[in-house]
Protein backbone atom coordinates (compact mmCIF):
# COMPACT_ATOMS: atom_id res chain seq x y z
CA UNK A 1 0.00 0.00 0.00
CA UNK A 2 2.74 2.45 0.98
CA UNK A 3 5.79 2.08 -1.23
CA UNK A 4 8.97 4.16 -1.02
CA UNK A 5 11.42 3.80 -3.91
CA UNK A 6 15.00 4.96 -3.89
CA UNK A 7 14.15 8.02 -1.81
CA UNK A 8 16.80 10.70 -1.46
CA UNK A 9 16.25 13.70 0.79
CA UNK A 10 18.50 16.58 1.77
CA UNK A 11 18.62 19.41 4.28
CA UNK A 12 20.06 22.12 2.04
CA UNK A 13 23.23 20.60 0.61
CA UNK A 14 23.52 17.86 3.17
CA UNK A 15 21.94 14.64 1.99
CA UNK A 16 20.27 12.77 4.84
CA UNK A 17 18.77 9.85 2.91
CA UNK A 18 20.86 8.24 0.19
CA UNK A 19 18.17 6.33 -1.64
CA UNK A 20 16.11 4.11 0.63
CA UNK A 21 13.35 1.73 -0.43
CA UNK A 22 10.78 0.10 1.79
CA UNK A 23 7.11 -0.72 1.83
CA UNK A 24 4.26 -1.25 4.26
CA UNK A 25 1.03 -3.14 3.69
CA UNK A 26 -2.35 -2.55 5.29
CA UNK A 27 -2.66 -3.93 8.79
CA UNK A 28 1.07 -4.24 9.34
CA UNK A 29 3.31 -2.83 12.01
CA UNK A 30 6.57 -1.85 10.34
CA UNK A 31 9.45 -0.44 12.32
CA UNK A 32 12.44 1.62 11.22
CA UNK A 33 15.26 1.28 13.69
CA UNK A 34 18.75 2.66 13.87
CA UNK A 35 21.06 4.96 15.78
CA UNK A 36 20.88 8.76 16.08
CA UNK A 37 21.18 10.54 12.76
CA UNK A 38 20.34 7.47 10.70
CA UNK A 39 17.51 9.27 8.91
CA UNK A 40 14.53 7.67 10.62
CA UNK A 41 12.69 10.88 11.51
CA UNK A 42 13.62 12.40 8.15
CA UNK A 43 11.89 9.48 6.45
CA UNK A 44 8.67 9.95 8.43
CA UNK A 45 8.61 13.71 7.87
CA UNK A 46 9.17 13.16 4.16
CA UNK A 47 6.25 10.71 4.12
CA UNK A 48 4.09 13.34 5.85
CA UNK A 49 5.13 15.85 3.18
CA UNK A 50 6.23 18.40 5.75
CA UNK A 51 8.18 21.20 4.08
CA UNK A 52 11.54 22.78 4.92
CA UNK A 53 12.73 24.10 7.36
CA UNK A 54 10.94 21.49 9.48
CA UNK A 55 11.77 18.69 7.11
CA UNK A 56 14.28 17.72 4.44
CA UNK A 57 13.35 18.23 0.80
CA UNK A 58 13.04 15.17 -1.40
CA UNK A 59 15.62 15.29 -4.21
CA UNK A 60 15.04 11.95 -5.94
CA UNK A 61 12.97 8.81 -5.75
CA UNK A 62 9.26 8.32 -5.31
CA UNK A 63 6.68 7.62 -2.63
CA UNK A 64 3.44 5.93 -3.55
CA UNK A 65 0.25 5.49 -1.56
CA UNK A 66 -2.03 2.89 -3.12
CA UNK A 67 -0.11 3.26 -6.35
CA UNK A 68 -0.41 7.07 -6.55
CA UNK A 69 2.64 9.28 -6.09
CA UNK A 70 2.33 11.62 -3.12
CA UNK A 71 5.38 13.74 -3.96
CA UNK A 72 3.28 16.76 -4.95
CA UNK A 73 0.83 16.54 -2.09
CA UNK A 74 0.63 19.00 0.83
CA UNK A 75 0.80 17.76 4.41
CA UNK A 76 -2.79 18.70 5.22
CA UNK A 77 -3.97 16.74 2.17
CA UNK A 78 -2.00 13.70 3.33
CA UNK A 79 -4.02 13.89 6.54
CA UNK A 80 -7.42 14.63 5.03
CA UNK A 81 -7.28 12.56 1.84
CA UNK A 82 -4.89 9.68 2.55
CA UNK A 83 -5.90 9.35 6.21
CA UNK A 84 -2.28 9.15 7.26
CA UNK A 85 -0.90 11.16 10.15
CA UNK A 86 2.13 11.51 12.36
CA UNK A 87 2.78 11.46 16.09
CA UNK A 88 5.85 13.67 16.02
CA UNK A 89 8.94 13.35 18.14
CA UNK A 90 8.51 15.52 21.22
CA UNK A 91 4.69 15.27 20.97
CA UNK A 92 3.93 18.79 19.72
CA UNK A 93 0.63 18.99 21.57
CA UNK A 94 -1.17 22.34 21.82
CA UNK A 95 -0.06 23.32 25.32
CA UNK A 96 -2.48 26.22 25.81
CA UNK A 97 -5.52 24.08 25.06
CA UNK A 98 -7.18 21.53 27.32
CA UNK A 99 -7.03 17.83 26.58
CA UNK A 100 -10.55 17.85 25.13
CA UNK A 101 -9.82 20.93 23.01
CA UNK A 102 -6.72 19.25 21.61
CA UNK A 103 -8.83 16.30 20.57
CA UNK A 104 -11.55 18.51 19.10
CA UNK A 105 -9.02 20.43 17.06
CA UNK A 106 -7.75 17.19 15.56
CA UNK A 107 -11.16 16.70 13.96
CA UNK A 108 -10.39 19.72 11.76
CA UNK A 109 -10.06 17.91 8.46
CA UNK A 110 -12.82 15.35 8.81
CA UNK A 111 -16.58 15.26 9.03
CA UNK A 112 -17.70 16.86 12.27
CA UNK A 113 -20.33 14.28 13.11
CA UNK A 114 -19.44 11.77 15.85
CA UNK A 115 -16.66 13.96 17.25
CA UNK A 116 -17.93 13.58 20.83
CA UNK A 117 -18.37 9.87 20.33
CA UNK A 118 -14.81 9.55 19.04
CA UNK A 119 -13.47 11.55 21.99
CA UNK A 120 -15.19 9.08 24.32
CA UNK A 121 -13.56 6.29 22.34
CA UNK A 122 -10.13 7.90 22.84
CA UNK A 123 -10.91 8.16 26.57
CA UNK A 124 -11.71 4.42 26.55
CA UNK A 125 -8.31 3.69 25.03
CA UNK A 126 -6.49 6.07 27.40
CA UNK A 127 -8.53 6.32 30.62
CA UNK A 128 -5.89 8.68 32.08
CA UNK A 129 -6.86 11.29 29.52
CA UNK A 130 -10.48 11.14 30.68
CA UNK A 131 -9.34 12.11 34.18
CA UNK A 132 -7.43 15.05 32.72
CA UNK A 133 -10.09 16.08 30.18
CA UNK A 134 -10.47 19.68 31.37
CA UNK A 135 -6.84 20.24 32.23
CA UNK A 136 -4.47 22.39 30.19
CA UNK A 137 -2.36 19.93 28.25
CA UNK A 138 1.00 21.51 29.09
CA UNK A 139 0.40 20.51 32.72
CA UNK A 140 0.27 16.80 31.81
CA UNK A 141 3.12 14.41 32.53
CA UNK A 142 5.29 13.16 29.68
CA UNK A 143 3.46 9.87 29.41
CA UNK A 144 0.05 11.55 29.42
CA UNK A 145 1.24 13.97 26.75
CA UNK A 146 2.32 11.04 24.60
CA UNK A 147 -1.10 9.45 25.09
CA UNK A 148 -2.69 12.74 24.06
CA UNK A 149 -0.46 12.94 20.98
CA UNK A 150 -1.54 9.44 19.94
CA UNK A 151 -5.18 10.14 20.81
CA UNK A 152 -5.07 13.35 18.82
CA UNK A 153 -3.68 11.52 15.81
CA UNK A 154 -6.44 8.91 16.07
CA UNK A 155 -9.03 11.71 16.13
CA UNK A 156 -8.15 12.47 12.50
CA UNK A 157 -9.68 9.04 11.71
CA UNK A 158 -6.38 7.95 10.26
CA UNK A 159 -5.88 4.48 8.84
CA UNK A 160 -2.10 4.80 8.77
CA UNK A 161 -0.28 6.07 11.83
CA UNK A 162 3.35 7.15 11.77
CA UNK A 163 5.03 7.33 15.17
CA UNK A 164 8.34 9.05 15.80
CA UNK A 165 10.07 7.67 18.91
CA UNK A 166 6.95 7.05 20.99
CA UNK A 167 9.07 5.66 23.84
CA UNK A 168 11.22 8.76 24.22
CA UNK A 169 11.32 10.07 27.74
CA UNK A 170 8.83 7.55 29.09
CA UNK A 171 9.24 5.37 32.15
CA UNK A 172 9.59 1.67 31.17
CA UNK A 173 6.17 0.65 32.48
CA UNK A 174 4.41 3.45 30.60
CA UNK A 175 6.47 2.62 27.54
CA UNK A 176 5.27 -1.00 27.59
CA UNK A 177 1.71 0.21 28.09
CA UNK A 178 2.03 2.44 25.05
CA UNK A 179 3.27 -0.37 22.85
CA UNK A 180 0.56 -2.71 24.11
CA UNK A 181 -2.00 -0.09 23.15
CA UNK A 182 -0.43 0.27 19.72
CA UNK A 183 -0.62 -3.49 19.25
CA UNK A 184 -4.29 -3.39 20.19
CA UNK A 185 -5.00 -0.55 17.74
CA UNK A 186 -3.20 -2.55 15.07
CA UNK A 187 -5.40 -5.57 15.78
CA UNK A 188 -8.39 -3.28 15.10
CA UNK A 189 -7.00 -2.58 11.62
CA UNK A 190 -4.64 0.40 12.03
CA UNK A 191 -1.47 0.30 9.92
CA UNK A 192 1.49 1.50 11.97
CA UNK A 193 4.95 2.64 10.95
CA UNK A 194 7.04 3.25 14.03
CA UNK A 195 10.51 4.75 14.30
CA UNK A 196 12.37 3.68 17.43
CA UNK A 197 15.72 3.75 19.10
CA UNK A 198 14.57 1.13 21.54
CA UNK A 199 14.92 -1.50 18.83
CA UNK A 200 14.24 -4.57 20.92
CA UNK A 201 10.90 -3.22 22.11
CA UNK A 202 9.92 -2.12 18.60
CA UNK A 203 10.79 -5.48 17.06
CA UNK A 204 8.79 -7.30 19.72
CA UNK A 205 5.55 -5.71 18.50
CA UNK A 206 6.40 -5.21 14.82
CA UNK A 207 5.74 -7.58 11.93
CA UNK A 208 8.69 -6.42 9.87
CA UNK A 209 11.65 -4.13 10.40
CA UNK A 210 14.22 -2.10 8.53
CA UNK A 211 17.58 -1.13 9.98
CA UNK A 212 18.83 2.30 8.91
CA UNK A 213 22.39 3.51 9.12
CA UNK A 214 23.49 6.99 7.98
CA UNK A 215 20.78 7.32 5.39
CA UNK A 216 20.81 3.78 4.00
CA UNK A 217 18.89 0.62 4.76
CA UNK A 218 21.45 -1.99 5.72
CA UNK A 219 19.15 -4.79 6.81
CA UNK A 220 15.52 -5.76 6.52
CA UNK A 221 13.36 -8.72 7.32
CA UNK A 222 10.68 -10.00 9.61
CA UNK A 223 10.96 -8.82 13.16
CA UNK A 224 11.87 -12.30 14.40
CA UNK A 225 14.66 -12.62 11.84
CA UNK A 226 16.16 -9.29 12.79
CA UNK A 227 16.03 -10.15 16.47
CA UNK A 228 17.98 -13.30 15.74
CA UNK A 229 20.80 -11.76 13.69
CA UNK A 230 23.68 -11.45 16.15
CA UNK A 231 25.69 -8.85 14.21
CA UNK A 232 22.73 -6.50 13.95
CA UNK A 233 21.80 -7.03 17.56
CA UNK A 234 25.34 -6.17 18.55
CA UNK A 235 25.75 -3.13 16.33
CA UNK A 236 22.38 -1.43 16.62
CA UNK A 237 20.27 -3.08 19.22
CA UNK A 238 22.67 -2.90 22.11
CA UNK A 239 22.69 -6.56 23.00
Amino acid at each position, binding site marked *: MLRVRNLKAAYGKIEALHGISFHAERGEIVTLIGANGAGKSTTLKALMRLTPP*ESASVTAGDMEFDGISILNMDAHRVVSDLKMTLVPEGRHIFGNLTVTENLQL*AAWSRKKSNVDEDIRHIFDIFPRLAERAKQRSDTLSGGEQQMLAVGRALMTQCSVLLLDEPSMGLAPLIMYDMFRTLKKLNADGLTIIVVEQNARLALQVADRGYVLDTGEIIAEGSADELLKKPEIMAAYLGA
Partner: protein
Amino acid sequence: MRRYTLNVVFCLAAVALVALAQAGALDKYVLTIITFIGINCIFAVSLNLVNGYMGEFSCGHAGFMCVGAYVGSLLSVAFFTNSNLFGAALFPPQWAPFLFPVVLLGASLAAALFGLIVALPSFHTRDDYLAIITIAANYIIISIVENIDAIGGPRGFSGMKKTVNAMSDVADLPWMLIWTIFGFFVCVMTIYRLMTSTYGKGISAVCQNEVAAEIMGVNTNRVKIMAFMISSGLAGLAGALYAHVYGYVNAQAFNILKSTEGLVMVYLGGMGSISGVLMAAVAFTLLVEWLRFVIPWLNEVSHAAGLLPAGYEISQIWKWVIIPLILILLMQFRPEGFLGNRELTQVFPRLKRWITFK
Protein backbone atom coordinates in the same frame (compact mmCIF):
# COMPACT_ATOMS: atom_id res chain seq x y z
CA MET B 1 -30.41 35.11 28.22
CA ARG B 2 -26.80 35.64 29.29
CA ARG B 3 -25.78 35.13 25.69
CA TYR B 4 -27.41 38.40 24.73
CA THR B 5 -26.41 40.58 27.68
CA LEU B 6 -23.34 41.89 25.94
CA ASN B 7 -25.24 42.70 22.75
CA VAL B 8 -28.05 44.39 24.66
CA VAL B 9 -25.62 46.44 26.76
CA PHE B 10 -23.75 47.40 23.62
CA CYS B 11 -26.92 48.45 21.80
CA LEU B 12 -28.13 50.50 24.78
CA ALA B 13 -24.76 52.21 25.09
CA ALA B 14 -24.73 52.95 21.36
CA VAL B 15 -28.24 54.38 21.40
CA ALA B 16 -27.45 56.44 24.50
CA LEU B 17 -24.30 57.79 22.88
CA VAL B 18 -26.06 58.74 19.66
CA ALA B 19 -28.93 60.30 21.61
CA LEU B 20 -26.52 62.37 23.71
CA ALA B 21 -24.70 63.52 20.61
CA GLN B 22 -27.96 64.35 18.89
CA ALA B 23 -29.21 66.34 21.86
CA GLY B 24 -26.01 68.36 21.77
CA ALA B 25 -24.92 67.22 25.21
CA LEU B 26 -21.49 66.31 23.86
CA ASP B 27 -19.42 69.08 22.41
CA LYS B 28 -17.74 68.59 19.08
CA TYR B 29 -14.33 67.86 20.62
CA VAL B 30 -15.65 65.10 22.91
CA LEU B 31 -17.60 63.63 20.03
CA THR B 32 -14.50 63.49 17.84
CA ILE B 33 -12.51 61.82 20.62
CA ILE B 34 -15.22 59.18 21.06
CA THR B 35 -15.21 58.54 17.33
CA PHE B 36 -11.44 58.17 17.32
CA ILE B 37 -11.64 55.75 20.22
CA GLY B 38 -13.96 53.65 18.09
CA ILE B 39 -11.62 53.78 15.09
CA ASN B 40 -8.60 52.92 17.23
CA CYS B 41 -10.56 49.98 18.67
CA ILE B 42 -11.16 48.63 15.15
CA PHE B 43 -7.52 49.21 14.26
CA ALA B 44 -6.17 47.49 17.37
CA VAL B 45 -8.60 44.57 17.46
CA SER B 46 -7.88 43.77 13.82
CA LEU B 47 -4.13 43.90 14.42
CA ASN B 48 -4.66 41.63 17.40
CA LEU B 49 -5.90 38.89 15.07
CA VAL B 50 -2.45 38.63 13.45
CA ASN B 51 -0.14 39.66 16.29
CA GLY B 52 -2.13 38.17 19.15
CA TYR B 53 -4.15 35.19 18.04
CA MET B 54 -1.95 34.04 15.19
CA GLY B 55 1.34 34.84 16.90
CA GLU B 56 2.89 36.46 13.85
CA PHE B 57 4.42 39.89 13.97
CA SER B 58 2.96 42.42 11.56
CA CYS B 59 4.57 45.85 11.90
CA GLY B 60 2.93 47.75 9.08
CA HIS B 61 -0.75 47.58 9.92
CA ALA B 62 -1.21 51.30 9.20
CA GLY B 63 -0.38 50.59 5.55
CA PHE B 64 -3.66 48.70 5.19
CA MET B 65 -5.47 51.51 6.98
CA CYS B 66 -3.96 53.84 4.38
CA VAL B 67 -5.31 51.74 1.51
CA GLY B 68 -8.74 51.72 3.13
CA ALA B 69 -8.65 55.46 3.79
CA TYR B 70 -7.75 56.36 0.22
CA VAL B 71 -10.02 53.84 -1.51
CA GLY B 72 -12.89 54.81 0.80
CA SER B 73 -12.31 58.50 0.13
CA LEU B 74 -12.08 58.04 -3.64
CA LEU B 75 -15.25 55.92 -3.73
CA SER B 76 -17.10 58.40 -1.58
CA VAL B 77 -16.03 61.38 -3.73
CA ALA B 78 -16.82 59.52 -6.96
CA PHE B 79 -20.22 58.38 -5.70
CA PHE B 80 -21.68 61.45 -4.08
CA THR B 81 -19.86 64.62 -5.11
CA ASN B 82 -19.04 66.58 -8.22
CA SER B 83 -15.25 66.67 -8.37
CA ASN B 84 -12.52 67.58 -10.83
CA LEU B 85 -11.15 64.08 -10.50
CA PHE B 86 -14.22 62.00 -11.29
CA GLY B 87 -16.58 64.57 -12.84
CA ALA B 88 -20.25 64.51 -11.88
CA ALA B 89 -21.50 62.44 -8.96
CA LEU B 90 -22.47 58.88 -9.85
CA PHE B 91 -25.43 58.87 -7.49
CA PRO B 92 -27.63 61.65 -6.15
CA PRO B 93 -26.21 62.92 -2.82
CA GLN B 94 -29.47 61.96 -1.08
CA TRP B 95 -28.43 58.32 -1.42
CA ALA B 96 -25.30 58.87 0.67
CA PRO B 97 -26.64 57.47 3.98
CA PHE B 98 -27.75 54.30 2.24
CA LEU B 99 -24.76 53.74 -0.02
CA PHE B 100 -22.11 54.60 2.58
CA PRO B 101 -21.82 50.94 3.64
CA VAL B 102 -20.80 50.20 0.04
CA VAL B 103 -17.97 52.73 0.41
CA LEU B 104 -16.86 51.05 3.64
CA LEU B 105 -17.10 47.61 2.05
CA GLY B 106 -15.10 48.73 -0.98
CA ALA B 107 -12.40 50.19 1.25
CA SER B 108 -12.24 46.96 3.29
CA LEU B 109 -12.03 44.76 0.21
CA ALA B 110 -9.27 46.89 -1.30
CA ALA B 111 -7.28 46.71 1.94
CA ALA B 112 -7.87 42.95 2.17
CA LEU B 113 -6.63 42.57 -1.40
CA PHE B 114 -3.51 44.54 -0.56
CA GLY B 115 -3.16 42.28 2.48
CA LEU B 116 -3.28 39.26 0.17
CA ILE B 117 -0.56 40.77 -2.04
CA VAL B 118 1.65 41.28 1.00
CA ALA B 119 0.80 37.88 2.52
CA LEU B 120 1.43 35.68 -0.52
CA PRO B 121 5.20 36.14 -0.70
CA SER B 122 5.82 36.96 2.96
CA PHE B 123 4.16 34.01 4.69
CA HIS B 124 6.97 31.77 3.58
CA THR B 125 8.88 33.64 6.24
CA ARG B 126 8.19 34.13 9.92
CA ASP B 127 8.92 36.31 12.94
CA ASP B 128 11.48 39.05 12.28
CA TYR B 129 11.33 38.56 8.54
CA LEU B 130 7.59 39.06 8.43
CA ALA B 131 8.00 42.18 10.57
CA ILE B 132 10.53 43.61 8.12
CA ILE B 133 8.36 42.78 5.10
CA THR B 134 5.31 44.43 6.63
CA ILE B 135 7.27 47.57 7.50
CA ALA B 136 8.44 47.64 3.90
CA ALA B 137 4.85 47.19 2.67
CA ASN B 138 3.80 50.11 4.87
CA TYR B 139 6.40 52.36 3.24
CA ILE B 140 5.61 51.07 -0.25
CA ILE B 141 1.97 52.05 0.02
CA ILE B 142 2.83 55.49 1.41
CA SER B 143 5.30 56.11 -1.41
CA ILE B 144 2.82 54.95 -4.03
CA VAL B 145 0.13 57.28 -2.74
CA GLU B 146 2.52 60.21 -2.42
CA ASN B 147 3.59 59.80 -6.02
CA ILE B 148 0.15 59.73 -7.60
CA ASP B 149 -0.51 63.38 -8.29
CA ALA B 150 -4.13 62.83 -9.33
CA ILE B 151 -5.12 62.01 -5.75
CA GLY B 152 -3.15 64.87 -4.27
CA GLY B 153 0.20 63.16 -3.81
CA PRO B 154 1.95 64.47 -0.68
CA ARG B 155 -0.65 67.25 -0.34
CA GLY B 156 -3.29 64.73 0.68
CA PHE B 157 -6.82 64.27 -0.51
CA SER B 158 -10.05 65.88 0.60
CA GLY B 159 -13.68 66.23 -0.36
CA MET B 160 -15.18 63.57 1.87
CA LYS B 161 -16.76 66.21 4.10
CA LYS B 162 -19.25 66.78 1.30
CA THR B 163 -20.42 63.19 1.62
CA VAL B 164 -20.84 63.59 5.37
CA ASN B 165 -22.70 66.85 4.79
CA ALA B 166 -24.89 65.13 2.20
CA MET B 167 -25.81 62.57 4.85
CA SER B 168 -26.62 65.32 7.33
CA ASP B 169 -28.85 66.98 4.72
CA VAL B 170 -30.93 63.82 4.48
CA ALA B 171 -31.26 63.46 8.25
CA ASP B 172 -29.59 65.59 10.88
CA LEU B 173 -27.81 62.86 12.84
CA PRO B 174 -24.23 62.44 14.12
CA TRP B 175 -23.52 60.22 11.10
CA MET B 176 -19.84 59.50 11.56
CA LEU B 177 -20.45 58.41 15.16
CA ILE B 178 -23.15 56.06 13.94
CA TRP B 179 -20.94 54.60 11.21
CA THR B 180 -18.04 54.21 13.62
CA ILE B 181 -20.26 52.34 16.07
CA PHE B 182 -21.43 50.20 13.15
CA GLY B 183 -17.83 49.52 12.09
CA PHE B 184 -16.82 48.74 15.67
CA PHE B 185 -19.64 46.24 15.97
CA VAL B 186 -18.81 44.59 12.63
CA CYS B 187 -15.13 44.34 13.56
CA VAL B 188 -15.56 42.95 17.08
CA MET B 189 -18.25 40.50 16.00
CA THR B 190 -16.19 39.30 13.02
CA ILE B 191 -13.13 38.62 15.15
CA TYR B 192 -15.14 37.16 18.02
CA ARG B 193 -17.14 34.84 15.77
CA LEU B 194 -14.00 33.90 13.84
CA MET B 195 -12.02 33.02 16.94
CA THR B 196 -14.79 30.92 18.47
CA SER B 197 -15.29 29.00 15.21
CA THR B 198 -13.36 25.94 14.08
CA TYR B 199 -11.39 28.21 11.79
CA GLY B 200 -10.34 30.23 14.82
CA LYS B 201 -9.12 27.07 16.52
CA GLY B 202 -6.98 26.54 13.44
CA ILE B 203 -5.55 30.04 13.89
CA SER B 204 -4.66 29.28 17.53
CA ALA B 205 -3.16 25.98 16.40
CA VAL B 206 -0.94 27.76 13.88
CA CYS B 207 0.13 30.15 16.63
CA GLN B 208 0.97 27.31 19.02
CA ASN B 209 2.71 24.89 16.74
CA GLU B 210 2.70 25.01 12.99
CA VAL B 211 3.95 21.46 12.47
CA ALA B 212 1.32 20.04 14.78
CA ALA B 213 -1.37 22.07 13.03
CA GLU B 214 -0.26 20.75 9.67
CA ILE B 215 -0.33 17.11 10.77
CA MET B 216 -3.82 17.61 12.16
CA GLY B 217 -4.86 18.44 8.61
CA VAL B 218 -4.96 22.24 9.01
CA ASN B 219 -4.03 23.98 5.78
CA THR B 220 -1.72 26.37 7.60
CA ASN B 221 -0.93 28.51 4.58
CA ARG B 222 -4.56 29.17 3.82
CA VAL B 223 -5.45 29.82 7.46
CA LYS B 224 -2.63 32.34 7.79
CA ILE B 225 -3.48 34.16 4.58
CA MET B 226 -7.19 34.27 5.42
CA ALA B 227 -6.51 35.67 8.88
CA PHE B 228 -4.12 38.24 7.45
CA MET B 229 -6.68 39.32 4.85
CA ILE B 230 -9.47 39.67 7.41
CA SER B 231 -7.15 41.66 9.65
CA SER B 232 -6.04 44.02 6.88
CA GLY B 233 -9.59 44.35 5.58
CA LEU B 234 -10.80 45.54 8.98
CA ALA B 235 -7.87 47.96 9.16
CA GLY B 236 -9.12 49.30 5.82
CA LEU B 237 -12.54 49.81 7.40
CA ALA B 238 -10.89 51.82 10.18
CA GLY B 239 -9.06 53.85 7.52
CA ALA B 240 -12.22 54.69 5.58
CA LEU B 241 -13.95 55.86 8.77
CA TYR B 242 -10.88 57.89 9.77
CA ALA B 243 -10.83 59.64 6.39
CA HIS B 244 -14.49 60.63 6.68
CA VAL B 245 -14.23 61.83 10.25
CA TYR B 246 -11.32 64.10 9.35
CA GLY B 247 -12.60 64.95 5.89
CA TYR B 248 -8.99 64.87 4.75
CA VAL B 249 -6.38 62.15 4.31
CA ASN B 250 -2.63 62.32 3.97
CA ALA B 251 -0.44 59.29 3.44
CA GLN B 252 1.96 60.40 6.17
CA ALA B 253 -0.81 59.96 8.74
CA PHE B 254 -0.40 56.21 8.19
CA ASN B 255 3.35 55.88 8.56
CA ILE B 256 5.28 53.70 10.97
CA LEU B 257 4.18 55.86 13.92
CA LYS B 258 0.57 54.87 13.37
CA SER B 259 1.62 51.22 13.09
CA THR B 260 3.50 51.62 16.37
CA GLU B 261 0.36 53.02 17.99
CA GLY B 262 -1.41 49.82 16.93
CA LEU B 263 1.34 47.66 18.41
CA VAL B 264 1.24 49.62 21.68
CA MET B 265 -2.52 49.10 21.95
CA VAL B 266 -2.27 45.36 21.25
CA TYR B 267 0.59 44.72 23.66
CA LEU B 268 -0.88 47.04 26.29
CA GLY B 269 -4.16 45.12 26.24
CA GLY B 270 -2.75 41.64 26.02
CA MET B 271 -2.20 39.56 22.94
CA GLY B 272 -5.15 37.41 22.02
CA SER B 273 -7.69 39.16 24.23
CA ILE B 274 -10.46 41.17 22.57
CA SER B 275 -11.62 42.80 25.81
CA GLY B 276 -8.03 43.60 26.82
CA VAL B 277 -7.24 45.26 23.51
CA LEU B 278 -10.48 47.25 23.61
CA MET B 279 -9.59 48.54 27.09
CA ALA B 280 -6.11 49.39 25.87
CA ALA B 281 -7.42 51.20 22.78
CA VAL B 282 -9.67 53.37 24.95
CA ALA B 283 -6.96 54.04 27.53
CA PHE B 284 -4.34 54.77 24.89
CA THR B 285 -6.48 57.17 22.86
CA LEU B 286 -7.40 59.06 26.01
CA LEU B 287 -3.76 59.15 27.11
CA VAL B 288 -2.62 60.61 23.80
CA GLU B 289 -5.35 63.27 24.02
CA TRP B 290 -4.44 63.98 27.61
CA LEU B 291 -0.81 64.55 26.59
CA ARG B 292 -2.06 67.35 24.35
CA PHE B 293 -2.90 69.27 27.55
CA VAL B 294 -0.17 67.95 29.78
CA ILE B 295 2.75 68.86 27.54
CA PRO B 296 2.01 72.62 27.39
CA TRP B 297 1.35 72.56 31.11
CA LEU B 298 4.71 70.85 31.74
CA ASN B 299 6.33 73.41 29.50
CA GLU B 300 4.88 76.29 31.48
CA VAL B 301 5.65 74.78 34.86
CA SER B 302 9.25 73.96 34.01
CA HIS B 303 9.79 77.43 32.57
CA ALA B 304 8.27 79.02 35.66
CA ALA B 305 10.57 76.91 37.83
CA GLY B 306 13.55 77.87 35.68
CA LEU B 307 14.33 74.27 34.82
CA LEU B 308 14.59 74.91 31.09
CA PRO B 309 16.71 77.40 29.12
CA ALA B 310 14.64 80.34 27.91
CA GLY B 311 14.82 79.42 24.21
CA TYR B 312 13.61 75.83 24.61
CA GLU B 313 9.96 74.82 24.47
CA ILE B 314 8.64 71.30 25.16
CA SER B 315 6.70 70.58 22.00
CA GLN B 316 4.01 68.06 21.11
CA ILE B 317 6.72 66.01 19.35
CA TRP B 318 7.50 64.61 22.81
CA LYS B 319 4.39 62.49 22.35
CA TRP B 320 6.49 60.32 20.04
CA VAL B 321 9.01 59.83 22.78
CA ILE B 322 6.40 58.94 25.35
CA ILE B 323 4.44 56.40 23.23
CA PRO B 324 7.42 54.18 22.33
CA LEU B 325 8.57 54.56 25.92
CA ILE B 326 5.27 53.06 27.06
CA LEU B 327 6.00 50.08 24.82
CA ILE B 328 9.48 49.64 26.29
CA LEU B 329 8.29 49.94 29.89
CA LEU B 330 5.45 47.55 29.15
CA MET B 331 7.81 44.90 27.79
CA GLN B 332 9.98 45.35 30.86
CA PHE B 333 7.38 45.27 33.61
CA ARG B 334 4.20 43.68 32.31
CA PRO B 335 4.94 41.86 29.07
CA GLU B 336 1.56 40.15 29.06
CA GLY B 337 -0.36 43.46 29.00
CA PHE B 338 -3.56 44.26 30.94
CA LEU B 339 -5.17 40.86 30.60
CA GLY B 340 -2.60 38.55 29.04
CA ASN B 341 -4.27 36.29 26.54
CA ARG B 342 -7.37 35.99 28.70
CA GLU B 343 -10.72 37.69 28.30
CA LEU B 344 -12.29 39.85 30.97
CA THR B 345 -14.64 37.03 31.97
CA GLN B 346 -11.69 34.74 32.60
CA VAL B 347 -9.93 37.30 34.78
CA PHE B 348 -13.13 38.06 36.73
CA PRO B 349 -15.10 34.79 36.67
CA ARG B 350 -18.01 36.40 38.50
CA LEU B 351 -18.84 38.31 35.33
CA LYS B 352 -19.87 34.99 33.85
CA ARG B 353 -23.05 35.18 35.86
CA TRP B 354 -24.19 38.00 33.60
CA ILE B 355 -22.39 37.55 30.36
CA THR B 356 -20.81 34.82 28.32
CA PHE B 357 -17.85 35.77 26.27
CA LYS B 358 -15.61 33.04 24.95
